[in-house]
Each structure stands twice: as C-alpha cells, then as structure tokens.
C-alpha cells in the first residue's frame, strides 16, 4: 500500500499547492544563469539520487519482484526449494468462489467510505468559514487519525461488547435490549466499517479543508457581492475548486476498502464473516503455509489497485483547475 500512499500524498500536494509550485518554478527559471556546464550528461543530479533510488529499489521493487516470483511457486515459507507451479495459484484464485467471496465484505467499507467523505466534506466546508471554536473542532475531528490502529481496535472492542460503554449509553436513553454489535453476523461488518469511518474521517477532512482554503478569498467576496447563498457558494465555487481532491479521495476510498486489514484483524481476526481479502491472504500464508498462493493473492490485489488508479487518472487527469 506504500506505493498508493506515496502517490496519493504527492498528488494531494500537487493539487493543493499547484499554484505555489508553479510560482516557485517560474521564479527558478527567471534567475536562470549559474546552472553549471550544459555540455555532456549532467551527473550531479544522479549522484544525489543514488541513495534514495537505491533504497527505493532495495525495499520496494526487489521485494515486489520476489513476491511475483513466489506467486508462481508452491513455496511454504520455509523450504529452501521453491517449486514452480506455473499459473496454478492464479487459477485457484479466479476459480474458487471462496477466494473472491470476501470482496463482498469490502462493500461495507465502501459504503462506509462514502459516508465518511460526505461527513468530511460537510465539516470541512463548515469549518472553512468563521465558526466558533473552529480550531478546537478541527483538532477534534483530526485527532482519531493520529491514534494507533491497534489502540482504536481495542477501545472499540470494549465500546461494542455486550454490556460495554455503548450499551450502557443506550440503556440510559431507554434501549433495553441492544443488538450484539460484533456478535451479530448481520451487524459485525457495519460496526467494523463504522470504526474505520471514525478513524479515517479526520484524514479526508484535512485534505478537503486544505483544498478549500487554497481557493482565493476574492471569489467568495465576489460571490457575496452578487448575493450568493452559502449553498450556491458551495456548489459553484467550492465543489469545482476541489474536484481533484474529491476524485483522489474516491479512488483512495475504493482501493482502501479492497485492502482493509488492521481494524477487522485486531477486533475479530476475521471471525464471524468479517474476513477481508488481506486477512484471507495472511491466513493462507501463515496458517496454511501457502506463501505461493498468498503472494499470488497479493499480486492480484496490487493489480486491481493499479487498474483503479489508472481509471482515476483517465477520469480526473492532472489538469489545472480554473475557477475564473
């Protein structure tokens, strides 16, 4: 997922700070001379890049290449001999319904992500105007994202267990027999997705807020003069102004819901029908010693995420947003 995260932060930067970077670059060009000899291949920049590129290759591309190789073997994770089995692992993934069934669980997280984005956009819009306790509320909303995922899992486990904090609160308002939030198979994924929303909304919120605040103030002033309502300001200034970020977070939400792992792993270990694709991958590798199959599953997930990213780039190309 590191790849996706990197790409994501780079693009977020691009979208919010495009104007600033543009200004910086043109300034650089303006102060042109003094760039060194123009003859021959410029070696200096490559020397600077040796270390980061080396680390990138060593810790990203070599392991990925290894994983792809394992995915064509029946390796058990220990054996010095890795027996090649051709496409067997991939055939298994695409023909065994048990393997693909778990993607249905992702739909819960996808729905959760939609709710999360709407909430985040709502709060970001409200808090980009002058609201009372603005900074305090910003902090409140962003705070969950800073907490360790394991801690969140444990806290919510205590919140959601029978007779836990949530049930106690509900009893106060008169709900005598609350459902089993995690024990009930029709609710477990909703509970877990809600936990996930609570955790990640802060991140979406900050992205939206940053984008909204990069919209020049004059536009709002002009809108005020024209007598625009808040709703019109949102719909005709803010929404088109942050289109890029909305597109980006949508894609992140989709690839994120396909690769959910941390919260269900800590809270239920995938029991009670909450197994996600990544949990299944981990179980194949470590419980059944099928590293080959697990690697193939990881490759499939990687390809799916790459395809989604590619689609996103087709739909939201890197064009400059022009509000005027």
């Amino acid at each position, binding site marked *: 997922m590191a790849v996706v995260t990197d790409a994501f932060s780079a693009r977020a930067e691009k979208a919010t700070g495009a104007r600033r970077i543009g200004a910086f670059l043109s300034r650089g060009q303006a102060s042109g001379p003094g760039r060194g000899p123009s003859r021959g291949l410029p070696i200096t920049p490559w020397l600077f890049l040796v270390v980061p590129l080396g680390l990138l290759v060593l810790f990203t591309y070599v392991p990925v290449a290894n994983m792809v190789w394992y995915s064509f073997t029946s390796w058990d994770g220990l054996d010095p001999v890795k027996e090649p089995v051709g496409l067997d692992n991939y055939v298994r993934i695409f023909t065994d319904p048990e393997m693909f069934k778990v993607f249905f669980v992702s739909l819960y997280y996808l729905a959760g992500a939609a709710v999360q984005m709407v909430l985040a956009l709502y709060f970001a819009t409200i808090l980009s105007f002058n609201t009372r306790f603005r900074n305090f509320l910003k902090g409140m909303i962003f705070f969950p994202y800073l907490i360790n995922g394991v801690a969140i899992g444990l806290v919510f486990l205590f919140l959601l267990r029978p007779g836990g904090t949530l049930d106690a609160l509900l009893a106060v308002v008169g709900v005598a027999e609350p459902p089993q939030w995690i024990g009930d198979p029709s609710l477990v994924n909703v509970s877990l997705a809600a936990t996930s929303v609570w955790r990640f909304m802060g991140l979406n919120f900050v992205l939206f807020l940053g984008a909204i605040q990069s919209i020049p103030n004059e536009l709002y002033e002009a809108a005020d003069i024209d007598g625009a309502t808040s709703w019109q300001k949102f719909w005709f200034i803010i929404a088109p102004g942050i289109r890029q970020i909305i597109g980006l977070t949508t894609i992140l939400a989709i690839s994120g819901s396909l690769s959910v792992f941390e919260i269900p792993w800590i809270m239920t270990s995938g029991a*009670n029908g909450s197994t996600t694709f990544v949990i299944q991958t981990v179980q194949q*590798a*470590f419980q059944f010693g099928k590293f080959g199959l697990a690697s193939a599953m990881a490759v499939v997930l990687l390809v799916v995420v790459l395809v989604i990213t590619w689609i996103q780039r087709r739909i939201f190309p890197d064009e400059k947003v022009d509000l005027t």
Partner: protein
Amino acid sequence: MTHRNHLRGGALLAAAALTLSACSAQAGGGQAADGAIAGEITVITQRTDIVDTVFQDYKADFEAEYPDVTVNFEAITDYEGEIAVRMNTDDYGDVLLIPNSVKPDQFATFFEPLGSVEEMSQEYRLVEEKAYDGQVYGLSITVNTQGLVYNKKVWAEAGITDLPTTPEEFLDDLRAIRDTTDAIPYYTNYADGWPLSQWDGNRGVMGDPAYQNTHVAYSDTPWAEDEWHGISDGLLYDIVAEGLSEEDPTTTNWEESKTLLGTGQVATMLLGSWAITQMQQAAEDAGGSADDIGYMPFPYQVDGTFHAQIAGDYKNAINVHSEHKAAARAWIDWFAKESGYAYDEGGISPLVDGPEPETLGDFEEAGVEYVEMEPAPAGSESYEADIVAASEIDLYGNIYRQEMVDIARGAADGDKESFFADLDQRWADARASVGE
C-alpha cells in the same frame, strides 16, 4: 498470554523482515574449537514475560557451571510469525524453539540432530515428536496434558459431585450450572482464537497410542460420531448450540477469562495443564484460593478409565549454522535437567524420571491414564500436516472452529450434520489429492 499464541499468524511480515535484516549475526566471543563447551550463545525464547527475571537466574546458574559460556536471550512476542521469516537466513540464534510450521522433513535443513530416538528416549520423554529418520531434533521445555479447568466452588454449588464420564453427562452438568448458579457454564475464548485450537490436542482420550496412525489423517470421516474430532468438536458444538457458553463469543478476552474463572463467573474452560497455575494465580489475585481451581479429564472413558494425552510443549533445538554447538547442546540438556522450568510451570518433567507436578493431583485421584502418542511411521511424518494444508481445515488452529461456533449459535448458515459432512468431504478430497 503471549507465550501461548502458538498458532497466531504473524501479521507484520514486512516490518519483521526489515527489523531482522538489520540485526546482524552476533559474533561469538571466544571462537571455540569443535567440542569445547565455550563461547557466546544466543537463546531465543517465546517467554517475553519472564526473560528478564526467571531466565536471568537460569543464566547465572548455567554460567556458574560452564564458566566459558556466555548466554544471551532474545525474547520474541509473536514467536511463530517472526521466527519463520528469520529462518530464511542463517542467523536465528544458537538455541531456538522449533516452530510448529516446520515440517519434519525440513528438520535437518534447520536444526542439528541431537542423537538417535532409541538413545535419547532412555532419558527424555516424547523425543519422537520432533524426530525424523530416527534422529531427534528437539527436547521439550515442559510436557503438558490436556483436560478442563473448572471452578470447584461453582460445580459444587450446582450439586455435582462426580466427574462426568460421557459428553452427555458433561452437558447435563453444564445445564445444572446454568439453571442453579449465576455462572456461565462454559467459556469458549472464541475471540482470541488459539484457545479453540486446544480442542484438537487430546487425541489420547481415545485410549489408543496409535490413534493418529490409524485415524485422523487415515480416515475419510474424522468428524464421524465415534471419531475424536466428531466427539470433541461435536461436544463444543452442542455446548454452544444449547446456549451453555457465553452470550457473545466474539468479544471474549483471554486475560479477563482467567479472572472470570478464578472468581466463579465462568465455570469451565478446556485448556492444557499449563493453564492451571495461571488460573490459580488469577483466583488468588481475585481474593479466592488456588484450591478453587480443579482440573478434570475430558468426559469420555474407554473401558471405564479416563485417558489424557501428554504432549511436549515447544522444543529446544540447535541452529544447524551455530558456531558453538557444544555450548548450545550443554544449554538444552541443562535446561531440561537442572533448570526446573517444567516443574515451576506446573508441567510434567521432560525427563523420564522427573518429578510429578502438584498441579495434577486431581488427575491422580481420578485415576487418569496418561497416553503418549506413537510417532508417525517413518516416511509419513508430514502426512497429516500435508492434508491439513491441502484441505485448509486448520485442525491445530481456530478458523474452522470459529465457523463451527458461528453455526452453532445461529450466526451462520448450516447445522451440525451439514457442517461436519462438509468437513469430512473436504478432508477426504484432500486425502485423495495428497495420496498416501
């Protein structure tokens, strides 16, 4: 709790790989010639809880006896997950515990042989558990038996005086506890997962030391009513289906369960004998007495006698790449004979003539006969593990038992017959694909 997580999957593979590649080999102090007991050895343990206390005493005692040796410990929290990754290099300590994921035919690749089964079994119990081709590769750190820990006060309060001898009687007793006391009759510890795996480890109940060489992997129907998995998993199914277990199994908590049993809020749990001391401790911490905790054999008798399997815990082995094999060997012999680890843990000694622990007094009273399982015949040591992998029914784990509990409590589709039939079917298919 951490040290009992035998079968938990290591989630942080990548992180572990990075961390481990950063630790380079700990070069030994004095380069000992072959045979001399000297040098610096690294002992890897799963006991993160006592590595800085009890193990430091072991180190002092051992180094007093062998002054040329320096012992260093490395304790790993997620032992199973991390050590397997690390064993892809040459650097995995001098003494380590054989992880469960290593198949017998891989022993020689990773571990130093300790001697022949014939010779080692004169002195040590259960050496054949980690043996291959007549060679022993590991010595048990302690030996456990299997049964049910229960709160004596609660069982007495429900008016039960005799030990149940059949699964039906056991269910009757649990019903009595449900009806006459406030306690939860049985606690599954479903959420932590590994306690469910304990239901597999007592095949000796069938009274036949050769049971797993004629049944289990050699049967197309291990979940039939008269076979061990049908009996044990069937009992677990019935307990849950009748509502004799905790209300919401998905939010159980192992550490808490000890206190629940100690204080009598939970009456019974199926666990290895290693758990007895922990439960006694929990009972005392909660203001009760260690005498409240009892240990009963699995409710099944053959010819009027209870049987219980004894099996080795993790086994100490020597890294085949170690530079101080003699010192490493001295350590594992000393650990089995002199350290007193097994006795202090309430386990049976790994030595043939070792001391009996006081914790198993209940078993002595009940006349339980211990059963040491016979090893698999030469050449098919990996057979059962291969079928487990092929069928993806984790006999030694919790995944399919969690599914079973879900079905039993009505949270998933199916019933006992259909689920067991499906297990039998998958097992038989896997047997066919592995071939005998």
